[in-house]
């Protein structure tokens, strides 16, 4: 008998995502995007990586609808976004939260009012409910005491945090970040990256981050799309990126001396791994010998030297 068991996880995987297909865009005859396709899955931090001027931000603008692609389609959860009716576009846009490169906070509003703005405009929440949600979002980004400040009174990192709070306030299911750590010190950059990563995992949202920062790549890159001169050259995760053979990507990754040094250490760690496995064998042999001399009842079982004193393998 045929038995159908709905697989909700598969259903979620299939439909809570953004799909871009064959995106082309030119400005005044200059080709900026050349047939970019890809899938951004929910619960993952998807990175658009590439050097400046490779079309990452234009692609992001196409995805959120700020720029209309010449050719190609963009689909949100199976609903076509490009060339669709304005109402449907509006409906999708109201599920989008975006962190802009310069934060794009409204100058005339306080931090609290900035976070409250999308709630006021897009939801039918009461004033008290909005206040609770604003407090929650500000607390989530660690700015519970900065609500009354104006954007001009807070630092760049705090502005980014407010931008994230504003983006997630209306329970957005898509989060877009355009160079979230540009202009920030390395420590604040990592904190912002971690915040984006945590929020993505916590709310299972689809996050797309435009970046050219290799620290971000190594910290949060679940799915990385590398772009070069308007083309997608590589796609993979942060675990694979260091082993790439693509010349442009290698040049990009190892442009800084820090990354070159990291690679060198990584290579050395690779040879150290071999040494470690040899040491491990020697330790096991030594453990066997000690067991035999002491008349251990567990003789014959070896002790894992890296798994604690009582662990037998």
């Amino acid at each position, binding site marked *: 008998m045929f038995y159908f068991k709905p697989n909700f996880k598969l259903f979620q995987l299939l439909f809570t995502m953004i799909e871009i297909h064959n995106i082309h865009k030119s400005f005044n005859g200059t080709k900026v995007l050349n047939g970019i396709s890809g899938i951004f899955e929910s619960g993952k931090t998807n990175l658009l990586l590439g050097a400046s001027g490779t079309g990452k931000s234009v692609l992001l603008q196409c995805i959120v609808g700020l720029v209309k692609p010449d050719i190609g389609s963009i689909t949100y959860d199976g609903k076509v976004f490009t060339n669709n009716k304005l109402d449907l576009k509006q409906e999708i846009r109201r599920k*989008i939260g975006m962190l*802009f490169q*310069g934060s*794009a906070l409204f*100058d005339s509003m306080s931090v609290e009012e900035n976070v409250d703005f*999308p709630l*006021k405009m897009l939801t039918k929440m009461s004033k008290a409910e909005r206040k609770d949600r604003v407090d929650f979002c500000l607390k989530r980004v660690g700015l519970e005491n900065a609500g009354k400040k104006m954007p001009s009174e807070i630092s760049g990192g705090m502005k980014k945090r407010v931008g994230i709070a504003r983006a997630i306030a209306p329970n957005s299911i898509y989060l877009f970040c355009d160079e979230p750590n540009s202009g920030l010190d390395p420590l604040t950059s990592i904190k912002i990256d971690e915040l984006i990563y945590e929020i993505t995992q916590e709310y299972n949202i689809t996050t797309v981050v435009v970046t050219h920062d290799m620290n971000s790549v190594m910290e949060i890159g679940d799915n990385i799309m590398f772009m070069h001169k308007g083309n997608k050259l590589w796609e993979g995760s942060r675990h694979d990126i260091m082993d790439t053979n693509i010349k442009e990507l290698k040049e990009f990754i190892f442009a800084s001396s820090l990354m070159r040094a990291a690679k060198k250490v990584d290579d050395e760690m690779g040879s150290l791994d071999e040494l470690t496995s040899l040491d491990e064998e020697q330790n096991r042999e030594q453990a066997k010998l000690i067991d035999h001399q002491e008349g251990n009842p567990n003789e014959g079982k070896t002790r894992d030297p890296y798994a604690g004193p009582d662990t037998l393998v």
Partner: protein
Amino acid sequence: MRLYKPNMKTFGKFILFLKSLLVRGESFSILSSRTIDEAIIIGVNSIFIVAVVATFIGAVTCVQISYNLTSALIPRSTIGFMVREMTILELAPTITSIVLAGKVGSNIAGGLGTMQITEQVDALEVMGINSASYLILPKVVAAMFMFPLLVIIAMTLSIGGGYVAGTLSGALTASEYVEGIRDTFIPYNILFALIKAVVFAFLISSISAFQGYYTKGGALEVGTASTNAVTNSIIAVLIADFVCAQLLL
């Protein structure tokens, strides 16, 4: 011919821009609240400059008319009459609007231009809000409400300025001035001035907003947009002044 084409293109873009103000707008409560805020910025915050300009224009008009009116055959009350006519028909609506084109026009263009280059307009669009309607429609509506009120204030103060200047300088007596400003009064002239004020308000606010909204680049371009907003608004006001005079008088 090369100049003609881009100008028509810009005009077409301006018409589409005006259309975009009226489609997929936000709720009435949000727009009305924004309109009140804008009315304060555009109207209330402009009262001082309008009052100063109007008072002195009335005073100067009175003094200059009395200087030129040398014939003994013309009664001195004519000075009051001329101050009133000039003020109501031309000076109050037009000069006030030109002053406001400088103050309000540059403010609108600069504000929107800055919002555009700092991606605040994009932030609104990404949220699914019609940025043109949300940001600009309240400014245009507020200007169209507040300009006539400012023109009424300007008319009153200008005639008052003429009175003070005329009597203090000894050009005419108080009773002569009052007699002059009451002579053959046509109420329609007030309506004409107010219609002009509404037309000028629409032109100044929409042209300035258009210049600001399409700003691209950086701080330099914001400055250029403000300058263009003021220049284009003043030209549009003067052309509209002529057209209104032709059509309505």
